[in-house]
Structures are given as structure tokens and as C-alpha cells.
């Protein structure tokens, strides 16, 4: 599945948040959205997964026009791990993950053996087998996030949208979540806040500043000293990490 976003503009309460952004996620690529708080990353993602109506622009997932399709049709193709996953009422982990089957269910369909298999598989993938009958609200932030990821996996999506999926998580779980996502081998569009993680996991990056694409390309092309100073307003040095050969970022001080 290929995601194509063309000239997408979103304004909230009269203020323009996203300004004619175009981006593309090619087949099975992991694409990262980077940018400071308030640059419009989340708003952009929300209008892709239909929570916010954009003013103009087009969003296509392979042959499907997402903006013109029903939420149900979209949810059968695309899974979303959002930022806010607090509940007012409690469910068990398994019940939460089972909700991921909703897009594939008619009103009166019961959960069948195949659903349980898919749900168990999703729970196994995020490593929460021992937790499946635990209450969701009793879990830690990282565990909750993994449950939400499992719910998205139970949708059996062909494309995944992640909005800062590793927020508030320990390093271990940040790596774990991104590892799971990458192992799915499907197209992913993720807003990320950690530049080194983005450099490590993403095939391609879009750097967003004030609702516009400031730079795009492979991590090494995009994450330069000058760009980071411009977009994030911090001084840093970029270096090759000797052990892994990855991209290292050392922050110096704010401007």
C-alpha cells in the first residue's frame, strides 16, 4: 500500500496549522515525520486518519481515496496508534485488543475462532501474553501503549499510522515498539520526537516546520546541523556512532 498526500491544508479555529503539505510513503517503507511541538504533525496525521476534516487536498492509500471513504472502509486498511488512550471505563487487555476486530465485523457478528487467533497473535507480538486478562487501566504507560499497538495489529492493517507512539516510554519500550512496527513489513507513517530513533528506524524523513515541509529525504540528508538548528532551534553536532555506524546527535545548547 502506498500513501499519497497531496497539497493537504488544515486550519483549526481559523488558524492555518497545515499548509499545503504533500508527502508520500512508498510500499513497505517506514516514513518519519519530525518537527517541534505545534508544527502540525499530529494535525496532519489526524486529517489522514479522518478525525479532522482538511480544508483542501487529497489523501490516497493505493487506490482508495481516504477522505471520501467511510471510516469503516478506511479502518479495514489502516491501523492507527494515537497519543491519547485514556479510558473512562475499564476493559481487560484481551477485550481491548478484540476491539481491533470491529472494522471487520457486521453489527451482529460474534467473535469467532479466527478473531481469537488473530487477537492472541497480536498480543503475543507485543509480548503481553501474561497480561491478557489484566485490567487495562492497571497497566503502566508502556504496557498500555503496547496494548493499543496490539489493537491496531488485530485490525490486520496494510498500513499503519503512528502519532508519537513512544511518548513517555522507557528506552527499552521505545525500541521494542519500533522493532515490532518495523517487523510488520508494511507501510508506516509515524510522527516521532526522538531524532536519533527516527534516524535509526526510518527509511525516509519529512521535517515539518510551521505547517510546511522544511526538508525531506533519507535520514542522513535531512538531519544536518543547520536544519536542526533552523527547525528545532537547538545547536548540535552530528556524528557517526562508532559502534553501530548509525547517526548520532549531540545537543549542545539552545540558541
Amino acid at each position, binding site marked *: 500500500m502506498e500513501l499519497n498526500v497531496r497539497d493537504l491544508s488544515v486550519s483549526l479555529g481559523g488558524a492555518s496549522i497545515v499548509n499545503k503539505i504533500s508527502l508520500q510513503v512508498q510500499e513497505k517503507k517506514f516514513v518519519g515525520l519530525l518537527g517541534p511541538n505545534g508544527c502540525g504533525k499530529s494535525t496532519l496525521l*489526524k486529517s489522514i*486518519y*479522518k*478525525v479532522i476534516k482538511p480544508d483542501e487536498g487529497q489523501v490516497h492509500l493505493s487506490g482508495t481515496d481516504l477522505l471520501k471513504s*467511510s*471510516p*469503516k*472502509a*478506511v*479502518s*479495514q486498511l*489502516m*491501523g*492507527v496508534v*494515537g497519543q*491519547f*488512550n*485514556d*479510558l*473512562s*471505563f*475499564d*476493559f*481487560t487487555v484481551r*477485550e481491548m485488543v478484540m*476491539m*481491533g476486530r*470491529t*472494522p471487520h*465485523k457486521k*453489527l*451482529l457478528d460474534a467473535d469467532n475462532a479466527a478473531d481469537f487467533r488473530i487477537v492472541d497473535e497480536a498480543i503475543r*507480538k*507485543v*509480548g*503481553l*501474553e*501474561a*497480561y491478557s*486478562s*489484566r*485490567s487495562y*487501566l*492497571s497497566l503502566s504507560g508502556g504496557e498500555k501503549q503496547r496494548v493499543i499497538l496490539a489493537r*491496531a495489529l488485530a*485490525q490486520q492493517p496494510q498500513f499503519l499510522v503512528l502519532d508519537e507512539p513512544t511518548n513517555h516510554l522507557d528506552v*527499552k519500550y521505545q525500541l*521494542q515498539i519500533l522493532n*515490532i512496527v518495523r517487523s510488520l513489513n508494511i507501510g508506516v507513517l509515524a510522527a516521532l520526537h526522538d531524532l536519533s530513533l527516527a534516524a535509526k528506524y526510518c527509511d525516509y524523513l519529512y521535517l515539518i516546520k510551521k505547517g510546511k515541509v522544511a526538508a525531506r529525504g533519507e535520514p542522513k540528508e535531512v538531519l544536518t546541523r543547520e536544519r536542526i538548528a533552523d527547525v528545532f532551534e537547538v545547536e548540535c553536532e552530528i556524528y557517526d556512532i562508532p559502534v553501530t555506524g548509525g547517526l548520532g546527535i549531540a545537543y549542545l545548547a539552545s540558541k
Partner: protein
Amino acid sequence: MTDIQAQPLRPSYERALVTSRYGFLLVQLVLLAIAIFSIGVAISIGQVHIPLGDSFRILVYKLSGIEIGDIPALLQGQGANIIWNIRFPRVLLALLIGAGLSLCGTIMQAAVQNPLADPYILGVSSGATLGATFAIMIGFGSIGFLSQMGVAFGAFAGAFGAAMMVMVLAGLGGKMSSVKLVLSGMVINALCTAFANFIIYLANNTEGIRTVTFWTMGSLAAAKWDKLPLVAIVMGLAVLFFLLQSRILNTMLMGDEAAVTLGINLSAYRRLYLLLTAIVTGVLVASCGMIGFVGLIIPHLIRGLVGSDHRRLLPTSIWIGGIFLVWTDLLARVLIPKVELPIGIITALIGGPLFMYMLIKKGYSFGGK
């Protein structure tokens, strides 16, 4: 991933009996049996005590025409009349009202995503009180059928009108969020209460004030056969409809944004559910006045027992709500000899401590953390 370092800290929340399909079916059958038993007991006890066997035989005869033992002799006594014309319709109404309040409470809590919600939250209570007060104090005069229906019509119109105003108010200026709904409900509540008090103050009618006070405490004493069909039909349709909505209700609890990503656009459903619960609650209030606590506490109680999944929660709380009200109505009739207590007093007296127990008990957090 092989890094599950710890076993669950808290006891497992597995509920085998209610999560397996047959176990759940069994629970429903047991609840049906309890409901029938409760009806039997409730129609036998009262100012005039009638043996359980006799009342059972009278019911069976009246319902199916099958004669068990000496039916003619039984029908001669005053028992048959009391059971068939007074107690049975009353007990059935209690069952329907309890089931309805508990259904509407469950739906409201999901629709506004707030564990404090009850059927009366959208201004229904004070709207109904205002309507009833108007009917009692001023009356609809000679407007044909309205003067016949009187208080019931006033209560329904008030309840429904208030709920509609709350929904319009919450929908103004963009999205109808659950916070806006709850706050709009409070505002309309305050306004309706003010108007009702204004009428009471100006009318200066002691008898009327007494009637209004009794009305706000709820009573099933006025139950008659001819009142039942409307409540039964409305309830039957509502139960049928909402039982089919369980999946959507579940995603509703995930929050608006997550629900969209699961393929369900909540705002349309929320509007529909609120409209329907407003109608159902209006009908309930019109037939028995205000009965507090049932719609708040039964859904929480049942959530603690079977979890938040509406496929189990809804049917179970409908049964328990009905059974609960049958027993509280019985208490209202027999607790003090020769005195009929308003049922709202009993539901609060039982519901309050029950709620306290749930607050203190571990393992159920009312949705909070």
C-alpha cells in the same frame, strides 16, 4: 518479545463464567428464574398476605387458562382481584421501570463517557419536575386530552424538552463533546429547577406542594393494566435496539478519536442514542415519577461483575435493574405497615450503602484510576 519480567501484580480479572458463551447463557437463564421468583414473591406479600402457591395458581390460570386445583373457589376470594388487578401490574411495571432505568443509565454512561452519568443527567430530572409541577399547580386546563393525561404528559414533555435543549446547547458552536453535554445538562437543570420553584412559590398551594414532593420521590402505586402497554412497547423496542448496538457502545468507551480509527463515527450514534434514551426516560418518568440511584448504581455494580463489554453488561444490568426495583417496591409497600413509602427513598437507602461498599472495595474503580 521475551521480556515479561513480572507476573501480573493484581489478581487476574478472568471471569470464566461470564466470558464463555455457555456460562453467560446460564447466567441469563438464572436471572430469568430469579425474576420470575421475585415476581411470585412480590405479588404474594402485602397488606393482605396470599400464599405463594395460590398466587402462582391464579397467575397461571389468568395467563394461560390452565386450572391447577380448585380455581373457581380461589377466584371467589379477594386474593384473585388483588393479585391480578393491583399487584401483578404493579410488579410488572416495577420490572419494566427498573430495567429501563438501568438500560438508560448504561447507555448514558457510554454516550457521555462519564461514570457519573445516569438516566437523568441531561436535564431530564428537573425538566420532568418542571413539567409535573406545571401540570399539578397550574394544569393544562381544558385542552382536551391533556387534562386527562395531566402530570404524566407534563413530566414527559418536560423531560424530553429539557433533553432536547441540552443536546442543542451542547451542539452549538462545533462538536458535541461529552464535557459540553454534562455541563449543558447542569445549566438546563438549574434553569428548570428555578422555574419549577418559581411556580411553587407563586402558587402558594400546600396540597399541590405535597403532590409535587411525592412525585419527585417516585411511586409505582398508580400502576394499572392500562398503563402497561405503552411502557412495555417502548421498553421492548429500546432493549431490542440497544442490545444490537453493543459493539458500537464498546467502541464509544474507547473515546471519539479511537472510535473513528476503528471505523465508527461516534457523533451520529451519540446523537441517536441520546435522543432515544431521552424518549425512554421520559416515558419512565411519566409513569412513575423520579426514581433515583437505580440508573447510576446498577450499571456500575454489573460492570464490577461482568466487565465493561456491553454484550454482557447490557442484558445483565437490564435483568438486575428490573429485579432490584421489584424488591425495592415490595419494601416500599411492606416496610412500614399500612404506610406506602415513596420508592425513591428506598432506592437511595439501599443504593447509597451499596455505592459506598463499591467505593471502599478494591478492584472496581468506577472507571478512574
